[in-house]
């Protein structure tokens, strides 16, 4: 196991050295990602210039939700976001070379290009979260402190599962890329708002059936000590890790089925 880990570490290092071959693009990427999250944030702030409340939540409360969901997404995007390259690997048959090595397919793909630039995004997202929590004047308890740390991590596992699960669609359809983006980036945008703003059926599918409500909204309620306007009991705010585990298990199942379905290309 430790040996295996070392092998991945070396893989990562080799990757970093390859990336160093393209320094200029690294800097531009860094800038563009940082700009990206600033705009995400501005969207929410601008929205609150037009209205004092959004779905029953104040700006500060909404920013707690934004901070939780954005840091979860940024962490997931940095670590496994790369999996959207899978479509390319499948279409070109490059996955063959990955499959003949004595390492896991998923870690190899993910480590084949870790976009460290995306960490800047995670940094900004965490800063937003900290600032919003500060503003919100939360009554801190040890449990709430733990929840603050755990929620972005559980959310990252959840988003990571969405990344992997939706990327697996590439094994069935070439050009599933756009569909997976609808789930990943779409999911990120939608989790930035209190789910009370959505219509009932959309909420049922998106927040509950797909589980996106557990990334930011319900943990935020638990942190803020607010009752759910939708009437769910308070413990739901603590359920995110369990939801993340279920999502990860589902993603792993889909991924494995996908790898077995891989068709390679003629050569």
């Amino acid at each position, binding site marked *: 196991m430790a040996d295996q880990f070392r092998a991945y570490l070396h893989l990562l290092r080799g990757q970093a050295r390859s990336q160093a071959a393209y320094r200029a693009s690294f800097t531009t990427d860094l800038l563009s990602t940082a700009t990206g999250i600033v705009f995400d944030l501005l969207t929410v702030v601008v929205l609150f210039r037009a209205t004092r409340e959004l779905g029953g939540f104040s700006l500060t409360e909404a920013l707690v939700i934004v901070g939780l969901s954005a840091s979860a997404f940024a962490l997931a995007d940095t670590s496994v976001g790369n999996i959207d390259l899978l479509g390319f690997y499948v279409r070109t048959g490059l996955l063959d*070379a990955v*499959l*003949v090595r*004595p390492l896991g397919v998923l870690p190899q793909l993910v480590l084949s290009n870790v976009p460290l630039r995306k960490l800047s995004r995670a940094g900004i997202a965490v800063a937003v979260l900290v600032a919003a929590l500060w503003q919100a004047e939360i009554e801190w308890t040890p449990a709430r402190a733990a929840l603050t740390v755990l929620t972005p991590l559980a959310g990252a596992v959840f988003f990571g599962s969405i990344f992997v699960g939706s990327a697996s669609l590439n094994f069935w359809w070439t050009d599933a890329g756009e569909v997976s983006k609808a789930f990943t980036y779409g999911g990120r945008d939608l989790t930035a708002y209190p789910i009370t703003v959505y219509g009932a059926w959309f909420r049922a599918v998106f927040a509950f059936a797909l589980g996106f409500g557990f990334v930011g909204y319900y943990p935020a309620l638990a942190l803020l000590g607010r009752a759910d306007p939708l009437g769910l009991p308070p413990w739901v705010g603590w359920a995110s890790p369990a939801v993340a585990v279920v999502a990860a298990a589902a993603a792993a199942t889909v991924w494995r089925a996908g790898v077995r379905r*891989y*068709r*390679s290309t003629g*050569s």
Partner: protein
Amino acid sequence: MSDAVIETRGLRKDFTVRVKAGRFRRPRRVVAAVDGVDLRVERGELLGYIGPNGAGKSTTLKMLTGILTPSGGQVRVCGLAPVPQRTRLARQVGVVFGQRSQLWWDLPLGESFTLLRHIYRVPAAEHAARLRRLRSMLELDAFQDTPVRQLSLGQRMRGELTAALLHGPSVLFLDEPTIGLDVVSKQAVRSFLAELGARGDTTIVLTTHDLADIERLSRRLVVIDHGRVVHDGTIEALHARYGSRRRMVVDLDAPLPDAGPVLPAGVTLESASSDGLRLVFTLHEVGAGELIARLAGAVALRDVAVREPDIEEVVARLYTAGPASPDQGRPDQGCSITSTTQEPGSSAS
């Protein structure tokens, strides 16, 4: 199964393809890329696996290496089931894809080797010893520090061979290793493989459509067409089965006398030059010795050459003959061969 390094029984791979029929209708059709292949390869064998484009060569190889999941049949490589035990198998096999690099594109070649040492967790001393040997065999020193993307195809292929062998695999799979190479590089790859094969500790399976690779390298030849094995045996057996004959070209000092010698059974005169000084005989499963002896008894011989049948020609005939069932006797080449063994003397002068 047994102690064979590779064993497959009824191995098959079906692909579902959608056929375009009309504007909206795209009915599915199942195509068998590999259609019941039985194969047994013993330790140390060098097997040539050939067939026309789309015959199922690469698909078979990909099932043997755990890249593709078989649709049916059994397969064991080094005693392992390739797909469920993929990572364990990966330590025991090396794979070279002629058209797909396993190296790190942006890193110097030498760094790829270091990375591979960590990936396969090869002890440093073992790695160094193997690398030293491969470096001298494949003459890598001149371009070890060049990024892979700047290597020529021939250099890269030598790098790929090294990369595939650094962890000391017991089986080496090569998918079209000489494709696109120039004559010199082809030669380098072939002689390397010949040397590797001669050591006898590595089992080698080679797909190619360059038949010269096969003629030079492997005694055993498996020909696949439409996903089925149509021949499994030596090259000589292939010639025998498909009725390719050796020819003997004889140059004479003077034309044959009219009464000429009686030709031995199985020999026919194919052609004679206008001056009668050059004769071409076809040998149907007989050695050249008898014919030479009889000719020499009649006239003075200047020169004698025995020409091996051209494998390209045989295989081309095999492919155009369409899907043939294995074990069902020889196709309709109209030849009368009863034995598949051939005399050892292949050339005389």
